[in-house]
């Protein structure tokens, strides 16, 4: 038996993944256990949880998702290239590298009680590529990895075959589409590494009328490459701000972070136009890269990974226009997924077979319904156990209730896929407003996603589901406004298609029996700024702090006592 633990972390969204004899046994982000959103610290809690799930005392090998030596080289080289503007960053950057990040392999060995010789690493983008290709159902594929930055590459094209992954081409830091998007996220007043989704949601409210101006910021070349004009950016010389005053001179002043959004005003509409233009630019850049990948590999299938691959709107456009017949994005496409890629690469290097295609993302810790029962009772809530959980939930949803729903093991990645979800009826737009304002406390322009029973989606959407809708990593256009709560302002929806044979599929069937439609509004089970719930305690704490009508943890139903 061979057990390989993959680890990502150090920068954001740390995670661990365990592969035993070629089977992905567990994968979990550290934030789910530490309760610190996007927790970057060495994921020892997540690693121990994965080992415990697999019943493994000590792994045979630990594989980190990045080469720490190449990283320190790139840091030093880019600081020197930026001389003398990088003088403020130099002490901090070198301090962080030499003070902690260089020693990550030692920290992992000590923290997990594994001999240091058994702790190795793979390259950042190779880990991303593996996390997509080896989780995909394709025997051969082109692979495109796009993120902020790894050791040196910010984008890479790979060719995945029966022989393994081979790099075809790459674009180096500082020309990074991830950092481009991050810089605009900061310009629009959102938190970097967190607000990128908001930029994508906001883009639907604007029109790409600033696209021409943005052509000065990023030049696309005919070979699929792209170049950033660094004079508009500051991420290479400044840790706090991603963009320079020149960008503000081009597009107008940045948006103040604290001002509430009001898209009725011309001012905020103008910011939505910037978001839409950025989104259009990103899509054009990704399309160029994807078409090059198609040409160079001559493959029919494409896998995408890296933080930028979480851009569902761009993914849909790539699927339509890049010339591939199938496209796959696994749900933890960001850095967390690097842990999965590292574990798979390590296992295959040790002779394990390629893992089976990823069927679902329920790879985290399981919930303990008995614990939820005990805690909810102790906090004074009404608790009951039900025989037919699905009928109970369906009935409540049809009465317009908003339900916190917890089932089985938690999802790997940022998407709620039916294990840790807030569920509601997908029809009334008022439901969306209620969840946005009372539960998520987020900007009113952000959409919610529909989960539909696979095979029924053509009743509401223009195209059938595909390899991506299974993991909610693409969008579809709605045929009408029936599902008002889950249709974005531009008529799209981040559709999630659910296997009828799965437990969540059974719930959707019960919902259909109750309401006539096998669709629910499905958003992640977390409050504003919090990681998604993992354990029963998280779920009960969420229920106590948020105005949802009921908490359902497997067969345990928790409600508030009438006051």
């Amino acid at each position, binding site marked *: 038996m061979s057990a390989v633990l993959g680890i990502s972390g150090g920068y954001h969204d740390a995670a661990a993944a365990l592969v035993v004899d070629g089977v992905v046994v567990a994968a979990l982000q550290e934030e789910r256990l530490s309760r610190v959103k996007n927790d970057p610290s060495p994921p020892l809690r997540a690693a121990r949880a994965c080992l415990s799930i697999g019943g493994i005392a000590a792994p045979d090998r630990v594989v980190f998702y990045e080469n720490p030596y190449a990283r320190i080289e790139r840091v030093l080289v880019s600081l020197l290239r930026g001389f003398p503007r990088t003088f403020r960053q130099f002490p901090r950057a070198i301090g962080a590298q030499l003070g902690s990040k260089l020693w990550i392999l030692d920290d992992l060995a000590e923290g997990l009680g594994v001999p240091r010789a058994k702790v190795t690493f793979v390259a950042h983008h190779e880990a991303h590529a593996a996390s997509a290709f080896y989780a995909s159902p394709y025997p051969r594929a082109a692979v495109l990895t796009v993120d902020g930055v790894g050791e040196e590459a910010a984008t890479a094209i790979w060719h995945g075959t029966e022989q393994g992954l081979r790099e075809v081409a790459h674009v180096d830091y500082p020309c990074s589409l991830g*950092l481009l998007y991050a810089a605009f996220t900061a310009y629009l007043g959102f938190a970097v590494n967190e607000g990128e989704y908001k930029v994508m949601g906001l883009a639907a409210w604007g029109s790409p009328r600033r696209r021409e101006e943005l052509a000065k910021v990023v030049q696309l070349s005919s070979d699929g490459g792209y170049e950033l004009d660094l004079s508009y950016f500051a*991420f290479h010389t400044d840790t706090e701000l991603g963009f320079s005053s020149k960008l503000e001179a081009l597009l107008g002043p940045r948006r103040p972070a604290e001002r509430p959004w009001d898209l009725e005003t011309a001012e905020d509409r103008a910011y939505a136009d910037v978001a839409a233009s950025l989104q259009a630019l990103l899509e054009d850049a990704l399309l160029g890269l994807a078409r090059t990948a198609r040409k160079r590999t001559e493959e029919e299938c494409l896998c995408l990974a890296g933080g930028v691959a979480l851009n569902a709107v761009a993914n849909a456009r790539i699927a339509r226009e890049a010339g591939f017949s199938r496209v796959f994005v696994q749900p933890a496409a960001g850095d967390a997924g690097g842990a999965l890629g590292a574990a798979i690469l390590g296992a295959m290097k040790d002779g394990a077979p390629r893992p089976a295609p990823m069927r679902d993302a329920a790879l985290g810790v399981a919930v303990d319904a008995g614990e939820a029962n005990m805690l909810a009772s102790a906090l004074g809530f009404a608790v009951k156990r039900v025989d037919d959980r699905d009928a109970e939930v369906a009935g409540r949803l049809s009465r317009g209730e908003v339900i916190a729903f917890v089932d089985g093991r938690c999802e790997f990645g940022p998407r709620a896929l039916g294990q840790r979800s807030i569920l509601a009826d997908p029809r009334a737009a008022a439901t969306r407003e209620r969840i946005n304002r009372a539960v998520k406390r987020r900007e009113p322009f952000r959409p919610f996603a529909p989960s539909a029973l696979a095979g029924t989606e053509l009743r509401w959407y223009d195209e059938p589901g595909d390899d991506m809708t299974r993991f909610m990593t693409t969008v579809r256009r709605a045929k009408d406004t029936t599902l008002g709560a889950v249709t974005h302002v531009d008529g799209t929806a981040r559709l999630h298609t659910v296997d009828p044979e799965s437990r969540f599929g059974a719930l959707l069937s019960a919902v259909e029996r109750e309401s006539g439609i096998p669709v629910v509004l499905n958003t992640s089970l977390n409050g504003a700024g919090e990681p998604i719930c993992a354990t029963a305690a998280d779920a009960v704490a969420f229920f106590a702090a948020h105005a949802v009508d009921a908490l359902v943890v497997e067969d345990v139903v928790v409600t508030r006592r009438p006051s």
Partner: protein
Amino acid sequence: MSRLRTVAGLLGHFLHRQRFFLAPLLLVLLAAAVLLVLTGGLSYVAPFVYAIF
């Protein structure tokens, strides 16, 4: 003592024939490491930390 493996890894990386011309940068790292030992380990947090560090 196991940290020697990391030191060896770092040296090996910079002395590799593909980038031996960067070997002088080891002097910079050595000077910084001496200063770091003198001042104690430090850690920092900032949003663009992953781009620079």
